[in-house]
């Protein structure tokens, strides 16, 4: 069940990461771009200024903890719920009041329901 790939860096099977290469490109880039010793060479290129890197490769987040929460946020990605809370503000009582009113209106318009 697990996707353990011990010594995966040297073997072509890199777990379930879905990469065909020896190492997942994300594993490589997050190391060679973001880490390693920074020594001022004769060619000055600030990797932080690179648009591709800042926009496509990095998550613009305040902290790793925030990033982790963002990673988990798919639990909250119910579009119906998210859409409603944006339209109506975040007060569930206001929503309940609206629903109660709508239910009342519905009952008025469909008297046959009252017969049940």
């Amino acid at each position, binding site marked *: 069940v697990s996707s353990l790939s011990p010594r995966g860096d040297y073997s072509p099977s890199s777990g379930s990461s879905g990469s065909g290469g020896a190492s997942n490109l994300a594993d490589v880039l997050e190391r060679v771009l973001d880490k390693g010793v920074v020594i001022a060479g004769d060619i000055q290129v600030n990797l932080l200024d690179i648009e591709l890197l800042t926009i496509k490769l990095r998550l613009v987040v305040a902290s790793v903890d925030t990033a982790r929460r963002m990673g988990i946020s798919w639990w909250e990605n119910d579009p119906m719920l998210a859409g409603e809370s944006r339209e109506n503000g975040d007060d*569930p009582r206001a929503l309940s009041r609206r629903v109660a009113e709508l239910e009342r209106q519905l009952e008025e318009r469909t008297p046959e329901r009252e017969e049940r």
Partner: protein
Amino acid sequence: VSTATATLTYVYGITRSGNVPATPGIDGVPLVAIEHDGLVALTSPVPQAEFAEDRLKDHLEDLAWLEKTARAHHEVIATAVAQGEVVPMRLCTLFADDGRVAEMLAREHARLAETLERLIGCEEWGVKVLAEPTAQPAPADTPDDTATDRPGHAFFARKRQQAEARRKTTASIEQALADTDATLRRHARASVRLRPQQRSLSGHRGEMVSNAAYLVERSRTDAFIRTAHELAEALAPSGLTLDLTGPFAPYNFTAEPDA
């Protein structure tokens, strides 16, 4: 003077005398070892036309160029670390010529030697935890709210239950991640948390709920891997997959530890 043959010197990393891998560098060009006082810079010449400041910026925006260069850099470092300690440089550390590299080795000698010393016998392992999308509540279970007398009320009661279930699930994932990290750290000398990776680069499935790197002494590598296997088995029933990658050169541990 032909600009077509003009080169710059690309530095991959610093190691000790005697640890020069046979792996070629960027564009398949053989490595050149530049030595100064016991330290060796692993370098290769690269075309100035491609790596000069004004060109480099454009190339770095080109994912295909970036991947080719990053993989060549990574390959040199991976081969060197399999043979001994290496301090990896950040991508595209470039000097005008070999003499300038020797000057750098002299200037940075104390810091580089100290870092090499600190990393002796260690390698880096990456551990990611992925949450399976199938762990979500199945949408097929959604009841038909309009079948009840009070459809709005039923709808919100159901949404409340789902929100509560999400809170509980998120809390239990947070706890499982904290426990996993604490257990792995018992076998590691140091650890760092990394950002979740971009799916377009990693190709991972599900959601990456944690991404971390551990500095592990080689004598403890077997215990670390065994522990990771045990943790993977423990996480699997919760729909969480543990992905272990490595060993890497200690890219994430080249900085001075906080005092």
